[in-house]
């Protein structure tokens, strides 16, 4: 039988499938569908210090094989999330990862410190790449210097492994990735959503109040896969790949270009049991392709 375990260096996961931030609620929403213990890890929806209402509706519209979202990181604030995490931890042994957000560098560090101190939290993912906070989609991950400064500041106050989540909406994602790992990131995750635009022709207006929104889902997979490959070629820390994964074969594609593990996002919305199916498919595909261990194909793309 195929061995699905993944060694991140600082932590081993039972398989490479991690549920992506913002697409798996706070974990609890999926308890009716399957036993969360089967997952590699769970990432919480992005969190700020204070509760946030999020953006006005509409917040999510469909595109061909994808969705554009402008949720605006609605959330209960970090105090309430601690309670939720404690509750979730009693229901599953799967590592819980907190997706840390901030309006400014100080808030990022403050929120990271709070969750780093929690026993129930396995790692942190620094969300420096959300396009739905500022109008125009600006975020720290668009700039290598800002990324380095922020990662260094956060590293100083956390004791847990720090994953830094990168944005595809930058001129040179490899440069930002290098800056993040040089500044102390323990792993990189990519990509967050692609900036996109939807317009209402009748009203001559953008569909979203924030004008631009983030594109995800199967439509983005080829774009994301290329960026993951580019970053993997130059990184010395583990890379967690994502964008448009909806099958076991998609997961293996990401591993082949060098990803250590993956995250699954949008698919959770239209198929709440997707993680179970995908993990099953990885095993069957590996058996079919006679791959015993994921490291046999990791980064083995031949060009």
């Amino acid at each position, binding site marked *: 039988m195929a061995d699905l375990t993944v060694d991140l260096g600082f932590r081993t996961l039972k398989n490479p499938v991690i549920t992506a931030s913002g*697409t798996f609620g706070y974990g609890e929403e999926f308890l*009716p569908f399957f036993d969360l213990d089967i997952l590699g890890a769970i990432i919480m929806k992005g969190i700020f210090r204070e509760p946030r209402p999020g953006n006005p509706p509409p*917040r*999510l*519209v469909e595109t061909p094989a994808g969705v554009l*979202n402008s949720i605006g990181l609605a959330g209960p604030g970090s105090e309430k999330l601690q309670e939720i995490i404690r509750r979730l931890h009693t229901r599953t042994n799967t590592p819980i990862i907190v997706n840390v957000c901030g309006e400014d560098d100080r808030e990022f560090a403050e929120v990271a410190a709070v969750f780093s101190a929690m026993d129930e939290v396995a790692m942190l993912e620094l969300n420096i790449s959300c396009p739905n906070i500022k109008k125009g989609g600006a975020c720290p991950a668009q700039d290598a210097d800002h990324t380095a400064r922020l990662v260094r500041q956060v590293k100083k106050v956390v004791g847990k492994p720090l994953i830094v989540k990168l944005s595809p909406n930058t001129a040179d994602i490899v440069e930002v990735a290098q800056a993040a790992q040089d500044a102390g990131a323990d792993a990189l995750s990519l990509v967050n959503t692609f900036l996109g635009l939807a317009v209402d022709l009748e009203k001559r207006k953008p569909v979203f109040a924030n004008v631009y929104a983030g594109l995800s889902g199967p439509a983005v997979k080829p774009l994301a896969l290329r960026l993951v490959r580019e970053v993997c070629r130059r990184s010395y820390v583990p890379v967690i790949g994502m964008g448009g994964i909806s099958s076991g074969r998609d997961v293996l594609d990401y591993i082949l270009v060098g990803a250590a593990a993956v995250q699954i996002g*949008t698919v959770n*919305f*239209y198929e*709440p049991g997707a993680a179970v199916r995908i993990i099953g498919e990885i095993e069957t595909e590996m058996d079919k392709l006679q791959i015993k261990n994921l490291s046999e194909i990791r980064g083995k793309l031949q060009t």
Partner: protein
Amino acid sequence: MQDERGLIEEAHSLGGDYFLLKIAAPRIAATAKPGNFVMVRVSPSRDPLLRRPLGLLESRPPYIWLYYQVLGHGTKLLSGLRPGDGLDILGPLGNTFPELPGKRVLLVAGGRGIVPLFHYARAYGEHRPLLLLYGGRRRADLPLLERIKTLCLQGLFIFSEDGSLGQMGLLTDGLEKIVREERVDATMSCGPEAMLARVALLLKSRGLENRASLEALMGCGFGACHSCVVLAADGSYRKVCDEGPVFPLEEIQWRT
């Protein structure tokens, strides 16, 4: 809450844009209550990607009934399904209409908004006095009338904007008179936003217990995506899929 593979038993075109499906979905049917809805995957392909929310017209184990209006791509695909076809259905989702035993309840249904109220009347009509106020643009928008006549109702009031069926006008034109003359204790409404806003205005400070079932664009239907929000009267957002779809009428900030 289940992700169940339903089997289509009957598929009827009711004329115009309206369709009715009878589906064997025993696990969902076993627990569905009036007000609950389901998310259906109209196509196994990636087009459209997201499921579509639909109310339950009726649920009598092992069957559920869906009644829908073709609006766009997803509902159009749904109308192509035939008996024997399978359909992935997630449900039952959301909260329910309160039962309110002993109360005189007026159901206010605009167009396809009849769906959860029909379910309510079917489930509770025999145990309490129920009245139904049902309106649409024209006769063709009220194709469920024959089925409605099989419900246990103490009063039925029909409105159409063009007068082709029942009284001419908006159903809200008749609302105040019915509430007054029929000594209504509570109302449950479902329909277009403009209709619900008008209902809210007309029923304001009358001391009735009022509920409305809302629609919203939904990404998941079970609380995970935070896309389906409506603005509440207190300025905060509510998720329609898991905090609703049924809300006290006064709790919502209606745009008039």
